[in-house]
């Protein structure tokens, strides 16, 4: 393994790979990705990879819109088919309060050029014919939202980064980070030490412990999040179905399988357990069968779990740590870290190399928690 680098990225998931690729694309040299397991073995390879632009804050709408722009040409850019499927997101509403929030969201989204619109229950059924409308009083639909293959996207970034000179070391775990006078000196791994002035913490569910190695406290924790997939069946519908109040997201993928999950912050295990539970598959099956009754005849073939890395406001923490020069963070993405990775990877690269970003992300700094300036995003699971 090499002994010296200009930039060391800890974590070879979608965040680490996107950051590395964007750094190399901007001309940076001597970049290293350290991954304790294999590429996309963390949350990035376990996630739903749904990508949406329907958010309730201006900042998130802009970030998501810009990310989608990158996704739209990413297969060509990376020379790897990421299987982009812009089948839309149909977000369903069950309460008046939700409808009111959605109306505000749609005004905001449209003002930013995002194609979302309100839909009646009847229009929802036109979009997704097998839908059972029980309890549904409306919703929003954005036809340009969609999903990608999360593995191919992560591999695509990793391979493109390597073609630009980035070194990717799998099975290489960072165990210590050495600092001096509030600057980064080196990282120590199970395969040796690398001297470096810059470390990027992109360790996903392990970003808290990686912060501790550098002596900084990052207010994040990890929580298990489960997901299941069915056997492939004939095409029934295309868009992602999602609800915040009823708490589900699921979609028929282009290859026919139906994939989905729900958030369970009250009961799910905190920590790094990624085992599966029966309770999840039962509850998820109930939600799916209720909304799309025809699914009751369909077999589930697999379930698995990954980690949500949660920050106090469920929004990412981006940027350099104010007390540790050269220590950059791209962590705390909760349930939307995949869809944002193309844009955040670009912005982190700009921040490291130019000291400024083309889209402001200063509100996502770690200092916001001390200042009490938490971001209030109404539209997250």
């Amino acid at each position, binding site marked *: 393994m090499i002994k010296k680098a200009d930039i060391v990225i800890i974590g070879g998931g979608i965040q680490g790979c996107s950051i590395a690729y964007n750094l190399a694309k901007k001309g940076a040299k001597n970049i290293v990705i350290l991954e304790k397991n294999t590429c996309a073995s963390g949350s990035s390879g376990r996630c739903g990879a749904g990508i949406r632009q329907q958010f309730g804050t201006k900042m998130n709408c802009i970030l998501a819109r810009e990310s989608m722009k990158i996704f739209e040409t990413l297969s060509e850019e990376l020379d790897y088919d990421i299987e982009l499927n812009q089948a839309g997101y149909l977000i369903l509403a069950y309460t008046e309060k939700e409808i009111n929030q959605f109306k505000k969201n749609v005004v905001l989204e449209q003002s930013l050029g995002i194609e979302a619109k309100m839909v009646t229950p009847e229009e929802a059924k036109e979009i997704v014919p097998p839908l059972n409308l029980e309890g549904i009083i409306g919703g929003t639909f954005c036809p340009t939202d969609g999903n990608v293959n999360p593995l191919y996207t992560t591999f695509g970034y990793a391979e493109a980064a390597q073609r630009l000179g980035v070194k990717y070391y799998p099975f290489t775990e960072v165990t210590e980070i050495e600092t001096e006078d509030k600057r980064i000196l080196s990282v120590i791994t199970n395969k040796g030490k690398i001297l470096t002035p810059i470390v990027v913490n992109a360790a996903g569910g392990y970003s808290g412990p990686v912060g501790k190695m550098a002596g900084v406290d990052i207010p994040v924790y990890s929580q298990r999040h489960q997901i299941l997939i069915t056997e492939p069946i004939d095409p029934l519908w295309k868009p992602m179905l999602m609800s915040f109040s009823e708490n589900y997201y699921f979609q028929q993928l282009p290859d026919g399988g139906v994939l989905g999950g729900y958030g369970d912050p009250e009961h799910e295990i905190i920590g790094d357990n990624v085992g599966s539970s029966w309770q999840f598959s*039962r509850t998820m099956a109930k939600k799916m069968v209720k909304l799309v009754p025809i*699914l009751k005849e369909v077999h589930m073939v697999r379930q698995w779990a990954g980690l949500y890395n949660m920050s106090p406001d469920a929004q990412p923490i981006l940027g350099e740590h104010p007390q540790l020069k050269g220590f950059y963070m791209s962590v705390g993405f909760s349930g939307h870290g995949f869809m944002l990775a193309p844009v955040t990877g670009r912005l982190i690269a700009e921040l490291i190399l130019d000291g400024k970003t083309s889209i402001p992300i200063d509100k996502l700094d770690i200092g916001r928690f001390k200042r009490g300036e938490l971001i209030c995003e109404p539209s997250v699971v």
Partner: protein
Amino acid sequence: MKDETIICRCEDVTWGEIRQALEKGYTTLNEIKRITRAGMGRCQGKTCQSILLREIAKYCNKKIEEVDVTTFRPPTKPVKLGTLAGDNDD
């Protein structure tokens, strides 16, 4: 083995596709499954997993036991969503 030989019937994955992934440096069962979808089909690898392991081992000059199978999830029997949801009329 010929490139056209089908290793995973459920997902229609050929040896050629697996060989390409191996050549790119993806040598764990997990990675091969993720890239080629071999083993992710209806039978959940019951039919193809042992062939897959044998061929990866051969390619890497390893013993079958030495192939990295990190987060291997044993294939379970597919269950109907209706059954899971507690609807027993099937």
